[in-house]
């Protein structure tokens, strides 16, 4: 069995096109209030480059390639960890003034059901 992937020519272009379109549509709906967390969140996502860095480092054949690979993994790991840390910190801060009505409503239903069971 072979699970190697070959993405050449138009197959690659199709992936790029669909991914770019998806990114555009997903981000286009984000309200301006979340633009900073969104930017640092997408910043975190491009940290996936660390996987490429790991591939390069594990396949390094000499000291030069090892150094470059080490550098790439170091920076990529920083991108991932830092991006996650600041994004989760920022997102944890967004609160509404009133407790969200939807969960409160559900809680109400649940308590009703609870009472009914008791009765």
């Amino acid at each position: 069995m072979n699970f190697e992937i070959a993405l050449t020519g138009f197959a690659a272009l199709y992936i790029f096109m669909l991914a770019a379109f998806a990114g555009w549509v997903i981000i286009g709906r984000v309200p301006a209030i979340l633009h900073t967390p969104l930017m640092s969140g997408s910043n975190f996502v491009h940290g996936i480059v660390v996987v490429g860095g790991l591939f390069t480092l594990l396949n390094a054949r000499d000291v030069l390639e090892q150094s470059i690979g080490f550098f790439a993994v170091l920076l990529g790991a920083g991108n991932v960890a830092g991006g996650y840390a600041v994004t989760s910190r920022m997102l944890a801060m967004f609160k509404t003034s009133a407790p969200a009505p939807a969960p409160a409503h559900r809680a109400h239903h649940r308590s009703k059901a609870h009472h009914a069971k008791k009765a």
Partner: protein
Amino acid sequence: MITLTWLPSLVIGLADICAAFLFMYGLQRMSSPATAASGIKVAGIGMVAAVLASFLYVFSVDPAAKPLLPINIVLALVALAIGGGLAWLAGRRVAMTAMPQMVAIYNGMGGGAAGGIAAAELFGSRAHGATALVVTLLGGLIGAVSLSGSLIAWAKLQGVINKPLRFKGQQVVNALIMAAAVVVAGVIVYGGLAGAALLWVPSTWICIFFAFALLFGVAMTLPIGGADMPVVISIYNAFTGLAVGLEGFVLQNPALMIAGMVVGAAGLLLTLLMAKAMNRSVSNVVFTNFGEAAKSKPGAIKGEEKPVQAADAAIKMRYASSVIIIPGYGLAAAQAQQKLYEFVKLLQAAGVVVRFAIHPVAGRMPGQMDVLLAEAGVPYDMIFQLDDINDDFADTDVALVIGANDVVNPAARTDKSSPIFGMPILNADKAKQVYVIKRGQGKGYAGIVNALFYGDNCNMVYGDAKGVLSAMIEGVKGLGSAAA
């Protein structure tokens, strides 16, 4: 015995496809403040899966790399621990007001990693064929520009570099640097295809190529001023995404391709949004020395700036029925967001309806003001964006402008000769009374006189935002029970 040589590549493939899905799903959850916090966790799971799976590459390494494999594994773990650990600590500790430069740094790191992958491919002559070579070089170029450009952006935001560096013929010099990088790239492609070295050995050319790319990032970012940073940070976000996507193609890794392109498109969209909010094109932001030509004539506006005491302004707001607050970079610079919300809570306790109006390019990165207010504990349903609140100023008793200038300059609506003419602004001048908290009588970033400050309905409260807000809090508290 059954051989399981196919198993690692199957697991890697599955982990990568999970990661790609979770990234997009996570970003999608970020489109509402209510679900956003879980969005980053979802994306985080994808990242952990992809990173863990990538260690399975050890089963299929290049035969020439086999002898070095144990060392390489150790190096990988060390690099992950050091890079990840330091960035994590920095990210946990950094002040919210320093978020733009932090994001710039992480962005540059991603670009640098992409550039490094390109460099390894080129030095190791792994990329074969015209397409692979060109894509590797393009990704390396963009990644390197993003690395050095983001570092300069960081230095500017951090205050290490204070003045935009501008000189005559700068655009020509920058264009020449870029042209040189492209020519060298051409030489590398030619050398790689023909298998013949031109003039120097290939590795020399590769070094020259990256040197020009890094230099271009520096040269491109140096002339850009502080208030244009929202655009610059968005551009480098897009650049790094693009570079990662391109190197993903070179490594034949669809997770990198998809994640990179999604971020590239997202960054492009944000870049365009920011430029639109300034009524300028992206090339205008990057390639013109904005503010230089805008030395305006002070005599053009009648009236004078009328200072008022902080406590008097505070008492006026205490007895108003509605107040809209317009924060700008000055609020972040003074770290006054906590004081501001303390003051707002006093007003709310007195029955005043308080709302916040945020301009898209207020601050140094998209949405920076929203994050600062969120940090202070301001509920997000009190925060309104330009289009949602601009019509309400006319019915508002007091507009309080804190450390913002150009985004409330009515010249953008009325004065065709103004460099910011046509930029959407917050209509603070339409409120019945305007108070402006400002450090001194200086001009805004664009160097343009602000007619708002001279209006009959406007008073200035001079001082550092934190000090002024403290005085305002004292002023309202000083009313004591008599007010209640």
